[in-house]
């Protein structure tokens, strides 16, 4: 039950892009077509899931016993950056096809605040390692959902007679704002109604 709650929370209620406003750079930058949006979403989900586990281990097994909890942000960034590089190498070696699809997006994720966000959120929520992992995956799915929805909207917008001053990024921001408004409908009461 707790896992279902985590998934619903991070996909809808606390959607990283549309209600937490984390990771907005790829939300505007990579949402021009749905193919690359899905690629970016998959890569972020993958990295978020693994980063959740690693940062949990670093925090609970290294920083906490030594009384250095205040170093979390610094060490998390270090770990995430190293991890993404490592993942990139493995993918490049073992699956050139996946590397071709994700390759350009992977380095972008290193400095994505959504990844750091989920790592810190896991700590403040006090999740155990499995809960952290599910939260990471769920946040990634929520990110992908927002990105794919946005890319489909933008693909349709391209065919519409938008005023010149609003073409491109401005109209994308307006659409994103409206989407965020719609996502405000998902709140804690949804969770109580669904799961009791």
């Amino acid at each position, binding site marked *: 039950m707790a896992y279902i709650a985590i998934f619903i929370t991070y996909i809808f209620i606390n959607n990283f892009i549309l209600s937490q406003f984390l990771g907005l750079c790829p939300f505007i930058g990579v949402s021009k077509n749905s193919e690359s949006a899905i690629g970016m979403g998959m890569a972020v989900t993958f990295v978020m899931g693994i980063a959740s586990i690693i940062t949990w281990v670093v925090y609970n097994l290294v920083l906490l016993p*030594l009384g250095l909890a205040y170093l979390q942000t610094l060490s998390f960034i*270090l770990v995430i950056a190293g991890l993404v*590089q*490592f993942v990139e*190498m493995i993918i490049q*070696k073992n699956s050139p096809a996946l590397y071709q699809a994700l390759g350009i997006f992977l380095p972008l994720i290193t400095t994505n605040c959504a990844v750091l966000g989920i790592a810190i959120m896991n700590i403040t929520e006090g999740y155990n390692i499995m809960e952290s992992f599910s939260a990471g995956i769920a946040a990634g799915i929520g990110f992908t959902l927002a990105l794919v929805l946005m890319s489909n909207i933008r693909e349709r917008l391209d065919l519409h007679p938008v005023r010149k001053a609003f073409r491109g990024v401005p109209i994308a921001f307006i659409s994103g704002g409206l989407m965020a408004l719609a996502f405000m409908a998902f709140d804690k009461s949804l969770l109580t109604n669904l799961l009791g």
Partner: protein
Amino acid sequence: MNILFAFLIIAVLGLALGLGLAFAAKKFAVEKDERAEQILAILPGANCGACGYPGCSGYAGALSGGKAQNGLCSPGGAKTSALVAKILGIADEGAGERMVAFVHCRGNHELTKRDFQYEGIEECSAAHMLFQGESSCKYGCLHLGSCMRVCPTNAIHRDEKGNVTVDPEACIGCKKCTLVCPTKVIRMLPARGSHAIACNSRDPGPVVRKICQVGCIACKICEKKFPDSGCTVINFLSEIDYAKPMTQIADAAAACPTKCIVEAKQ
């Protein structure tokens, strides 16, 4: 004491990650062909696809792997093929002749009759689906400029009358426009050619005369009066054989009653 501890932990963490990455970089190193990167640096980088490979990097990879023929890069021409041959250590066969695209039609809405008026998507393929376009001549240019939009170098222009022309200086010979043109009125011709036939109509002379003022009416003046012009009328359309000397082509152009032999370098 505490600050020292913090310093040590971060230093150790950084060192472990750094060493781990260095080790992984060795272990998971992907062997890259250096020649592919050298070739990629030489290629023009237009990613036009004229060679038939997905972008310049695709062609560079195929060349270094010995899978592709040298000299397929039309934007690079002879210069590029010579440099590539040097890197690969093979004999340079040359890039062949520089070819440029040419729109074989000078008809427009004033000079050519229309069956109906097309109002719809500004795309030649869409217009062509409707009775092969609005013009009475079904072989000519549709004037909607699909070729202009695919041209990677913006070498294709359309004037206010709708005439579409290719700038031979700016054309890199990627053939993208010839593929997108539904009437195939854009074809490649050697860049050295001074003149070209500005008509693509295979209709018999009397038909062309009725519907277009600048079409080839297959009168054979160019072929018969100027045998050294290189022109031959095949299937009601004059064609220039660029392999011939073409010494009389300027005279033939002047004598052409519908003036459809035009200078290619305009």
